[in-house]
């Protein structure tokens, strides 16, 4: 479409935030994904926020069934999908009612006016039609008869009305692509690949897409087009990647780089299932996936695989992790390497399955019976899940311990550009299995190296037969032992072993002044909002620095010293203050919390506001 003669004014922007919203059956996730990929291919930096209801098909047209996908694309480096949106595409009144609050004053509002009939308005709680009653005057409102126009575009292809209407999201995409001067090519390629076997559907989607684009071009309604130029990213090969995909690829890479076979035991759960869906596609790497009968079997099978010498991994979300806790204790006791992924979601109990939260940190830290420490690693962004997986496995094998890998629904489903790494640059992870012992001397399964790690002897090796189990072990011999002094010694040893991980953690770094008035400490998926918020506050004159933790247990060894260089500490978290509690108890620091538990990520503005409030005091 680049050849079209431009008839409208073209406005250059640094960044734009667009949200598609509609019924969960309206294909909004697809629309968002297509704009994401197209923007990534156009060279923008991107951040996305898919947001969908827990019900697969809530009643049509209701607020409960509204699904949304927000994407921010920029010519500069960005870390969040944006607090407010510049353009909102609403497919029905319910979507408008639930999303309007996030539209910037003066922002672009495209609404499918055909859906604003009496029934639709009533379902959304409108007594008058907002497209006509003047209530939307502070926005650039574009009512578009999307249903009618889409039906006209696909007319003659022999599609029923339902099938025709299913192409509406492509019309909406086409119009948005015109608005932001985006190429249709990637989406046309997608249509070919996806609907190639259904020529009529493929043609209908193509026509709807082009009709939307041409609508923007030819009607007088829209006077301006916007353009966001390429971002200055480091040179290299890039792709778009979601957190769950990056995590799965990180696991496969960790297996390859440690010469282990990956065994993945899991049970379907939102929002972690996509890791399983991704891993089943990689049998050519020897990946063995096992959809177990329940969460307990998922982790136990991974422990069985770990005993046999595989890279045992299990993944779930909070409720599933709760079920796995006894078995994780077994892995602590048997001192087997294991990666336990928790894609956190809103809790407690079933909670908010499709919404994000960071409220399982203390579960990872303490959620087992007995003194049962585990190292904890947290990913900070979608692409970072890749590296976090490598880090988690590295610690697990080095220290013969289960390791928690925390992500959350926000980064798991969100996407960003990922610079494809050179495989040779990935860490080589050393795995040692002791060789056969032919001299008849008894094998000592709980003898320890300098890290306090025990040997990973695997079945099939002559002379190393030994029995593991959940009963307390005598150190060195591994025999069952109930003696008081031995229990104390083993409790202390397991704790020391996990504490020793700190020796392998790179020193914590501070972004901004090395000392000063306020230090913001964050962890996990709030990285983007915190990093952006701190920079913004500093630009506006605040004396504030930022440090983001990848390792939550143990903490980096220089963290105490860093904290000591600042007057105050602020810990923003999507929970009621879990990291803050750990920091307070560990470092006796009077940390201030910024806590939000609404199933939503932080807005940058919330971070900035809190920083300014503290710095002013």
């Amino acid at each position, binding site marked *: 479409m680049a050849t079209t003669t431009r008839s409208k004014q073209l406005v250059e922007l640094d960044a734009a935030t667009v949200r598609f919203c509609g019924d969960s059956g309206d294909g909004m996730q697809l629309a968002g994904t297509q704009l994401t990929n197209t923007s990534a291919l156009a060279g923008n930096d991107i951040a996305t926020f898919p947001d969908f209801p827990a019900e697969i098909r809530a009643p049509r047209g209701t607020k409960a069934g509204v699904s949304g996908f927000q994407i921010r694309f920029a010519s500069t480096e960005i870390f969040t999908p944006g607090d407010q949106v510049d353009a909102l595409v609403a497919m029905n009144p319910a979507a408008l009612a639930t999303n309007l609050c996030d539209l910037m004053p003066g922002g672009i509002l495209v609404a499918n006016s055909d859906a604003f009939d009496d029934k639709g308005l009533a379902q959304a709680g409108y007594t008058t039609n907002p497209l006509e009653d003047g209530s939307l005057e502070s926005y650039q409102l574009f009512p578009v008869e999307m249903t009618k126009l889409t039906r006209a575009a696909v007319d003659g292809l022999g599609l029923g009305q339902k099938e025709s209407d299913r192409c509406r999201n492509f019309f909406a995409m086409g119009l948005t692509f015109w608005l932001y001067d985006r190429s249709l090519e990637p989406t046309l390629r997608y249509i070919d690949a996806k609907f190639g076997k259904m020529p009529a559907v493929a043609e209908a989607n193509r026509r709807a897409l082009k009709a939307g684009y041409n609508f923007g071009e030819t009607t007088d309604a829209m006077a301006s087009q916007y353009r966001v130029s390429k971002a200055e990213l480091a040179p290299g090969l890039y792709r778009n990647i979601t957190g769950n995909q990056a995590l799965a690829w990180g696991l496969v890479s960790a297996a390859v780089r440690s010469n282990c076979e990956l065994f993945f035991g899991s049970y379907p759960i939102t929002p972690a299932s996509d890791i399983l869906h991704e891993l089943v596609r990689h049998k050519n790497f020897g990946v*063995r996936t096992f959809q177990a009968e329940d969460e307990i079997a998922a982790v136990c099978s991974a422990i069985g695989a770990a005993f046999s010498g595989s890279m045992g991994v299990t993944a779930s979300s909070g409720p599933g992790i709760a079920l796995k806790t006894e078995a994780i204790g077994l892995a602590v006791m048997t001192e087997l390497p294991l990666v336990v992924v928790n894609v956190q979601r809103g809790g407690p109990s079933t909670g908010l399955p499709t919404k994000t939260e960071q409220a399982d940190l203390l579960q990872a830290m303490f959620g087992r019976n007995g003194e049962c420490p585990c190292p904890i690693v947290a990913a900070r962004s979608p692409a970072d899940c890749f590296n976090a997986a490598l880090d988690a496995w590295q610690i697990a094998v080095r220290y013969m311990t289960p390791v928690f890998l925390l992500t959350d629904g926000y980064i798991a489903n969100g996407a960003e550009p990922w610079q494809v790494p050179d495989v040779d640059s990935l860490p080589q992870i050393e795995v040692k299995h002791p060789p056969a012992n032919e001299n008849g001397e008894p094998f000592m399964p709980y003898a320890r190296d300098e890290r306090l790690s025990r040997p990973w002897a695997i079945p099939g090796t002559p002379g190393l037969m030994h*029995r593991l189990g959940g009963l307390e072990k005598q150190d060195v011999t591994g025999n069952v032992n109930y003696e008081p002094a031995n229990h104390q010694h083993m409790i202390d040893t397991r704790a020391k072993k996990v504490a020793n991980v700190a020796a392998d953690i790179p020193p914590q770094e501070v972004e901004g002044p090395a000392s000063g008035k306020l230090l913001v400490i964050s962890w996990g998926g709030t990285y983007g909002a915190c990093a952006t918020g701190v920079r913004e506050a500093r630009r506006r004159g605040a004396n504030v620095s930022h440090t983001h933790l990848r390792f939550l247990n143990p903490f980096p060894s220089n963290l105490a010293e860093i904290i000591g260089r600042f007057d105050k500490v602020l810990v923003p978290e999507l929970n009621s203050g879990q990291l803050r509690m750990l920091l307070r108890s560990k470092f006796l620091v009077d940390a201030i919390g910024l806590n939000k538990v609404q199933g939503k990520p932080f807005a940058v503005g919330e971070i900035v506001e809190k920083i300014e409030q503290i710095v002013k005091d």
Partner: protein
Amino acid sequence: MSTETALPVLTPGDFASDQEVRWCPGCGDYSILAQMKKVLPTLGVPPEKTVFISGIGCSSRFPYYVNTYGMHSIHGRAPAVASGLKIARPDLSVWVITGDGDALSIGGNHLMHAIRRNLNINIVLFNNRIYGLTKGQYSPTSVLGQVTKSTPAGAIDTPLRPLCVAIGCEATFVARSIDVNIKHLAATLKRAAEHVGTSFVEVYQNCNVFNDGAFEYATGRDVKADSTLTLENGKPLIFGKNRDKGIRLNGMNPEVVELGKGISEDDLLFHDEKAPEPTLAYLLSRMSYPEFPEPIGVFRDIDAPRYEEVLGDQIAAAQQRGKGDLQSLFSSGETWVVQ
């Protein structure tokens, strides 16, 4: 079970561990351990390729007493641990040792799914109809009315029949034996080991401390011939001290008949452990004392695909299309270059 070549001759001693056995004196577990140690050297699998996985309970101490690889895991989860182990390492010979509480109560779900997947593992359930380790509560196989510490007025829930459960889960090998019937027990364990697929063996095991004599009817010198029936493939179902009684089908139901008086062996039900449908095995598994003699031996032994083998085939097929390469994975699909 694959046969290893040129193995040194193994003896029960090769499978004995140095750990002191801690079951109560007189417990039926001793006998099962002894028969297992007798059978293991005959299987052609060296100790280092054998793994015992157990859950929690008296029986689950078993792995400590055999010098193989082993894991005394957590309550009810042994089949899940064993599944991961076998899927990851099909070359290993994997045994699950469990009890009635471990397998049928807390671990019922795992037992069910391990059996239906038909992994090539052997599950041996020591059934003593009581919780021994926790000192005498009733178990899912305790009989109705059984008075225990937790059921002073008698157990009121219908007991599970382990073999019925296994058959209902599409088990490909189902057998029963008795702790003190040592020749039969050894032969049954050997058959279980030789079966390719999940073998499920129930062993009647006397807990002489908390449920002594639970199987007296099946073990007592004077009564056992009349209250048990030894299954033999292709043979009619005959039992009794004088081998003068048999099982005949009356419509859909079995009935006990006396041989002679116009009833010959040909009128009896014939055992067929290879029957593709589990109907006969199920019928046999429901026969219980005192209405019927309780069958011991192999109820069912059929061939079906093994989970780990089919998965292995899928992996091999995927690798034949091209072994995984990280660099090409990373650059697959839509990518772009920043100069």
